[in-house]
């Protein structure tokens, strides 16, 4: 099965709540997009920081899944976010995840989240443990 199809077919309930859709997938690069809906916002109407982190976390975990040996699982053990700019309600955010380290026990990924216009929203670095 195609990797992108694989990611979009896996049932991830929270990703569905977010409205996350994977748009590109390979072992070294995963991309997804998400519309900033009002229920994902804080006051004023910009994307909530938790939603930014959850969006990035899902991408990092998905990228790890594409690199896992058969029969292995993964869990996030560390995550760090720099919030750089706002993503207003109604816009679409785009996430791009690339590897910093892909080891047997842990993998480290960085996710750049931008608006559709290319304005940087956040940069997330997370560590995934291989289970």
């Amino acid at each position, binding site marked *: 099965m195609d990797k992108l199809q694989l990611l979009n077919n896996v*049932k*991830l309930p*929270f990703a569905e709540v977010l409205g996350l859709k994977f748009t590109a997938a390979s072992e070294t690069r995963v991309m997804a997009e998400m519309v900033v809906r009002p229920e994902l916002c804080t006051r004023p109407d910009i994307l909530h920081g938790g939603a930014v982190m959850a969006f990035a*976390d*899902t991408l*990092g*975990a*998905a990228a*790890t*899944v594409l690199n896992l040996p*058969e*029969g*292995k*699982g*993964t*869990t*996030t053990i560390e995550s760090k976010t720099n919030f750089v700019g706002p993503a207003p309600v109604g816009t679409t955010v785009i996430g791009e995840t690339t590897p910093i380290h892909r080891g047997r026990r842990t993998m480290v990924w960085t996710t750049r989240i931008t608006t559709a216009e290319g304005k940087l929203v956040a940069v997330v670095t997370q560590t995934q443990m291989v*289970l």
Partner: protein
Amino acid sequence: MTVSSDRFLRRTFWGNAAFSVISGAGLAAFAGPFARAATDAPVSVLGLDLALLFELLGVGVVAFGALCAWIASRPELPRGLARLIFAADLAWVAGSVLVLALPAAWTTAGIAGIVVLALIVADLAILEYLGLRKMSAAN
């Protein structure tokens, strides 16, 4: 985010399916000889003689094995049914202890057969428990 692997539990269910289908079919096919070998005197449970009971039990075990195979083949492993299979295996082990306690004239071969089957089922139940726990821990 956490993504767990269900490979261990899935393999256990395939093993349970193979064991159940083979042993169930064997029990149903050779119900008469098994019944004669298991007891010194004719045994009847709820009005059914032991050979007929073994035949029914064998068919039931084959159906159980088919259910295990169906569960193992699902793209997403159904947790509720997986727990049901685990509970059924525990019930088989408990049932075996009760059967041995019945005032029936079991032969040594009969007792050995019941104990060996119960030990195999207990092993499968332990593997299922570990598989279920692994999946729960990762979520």
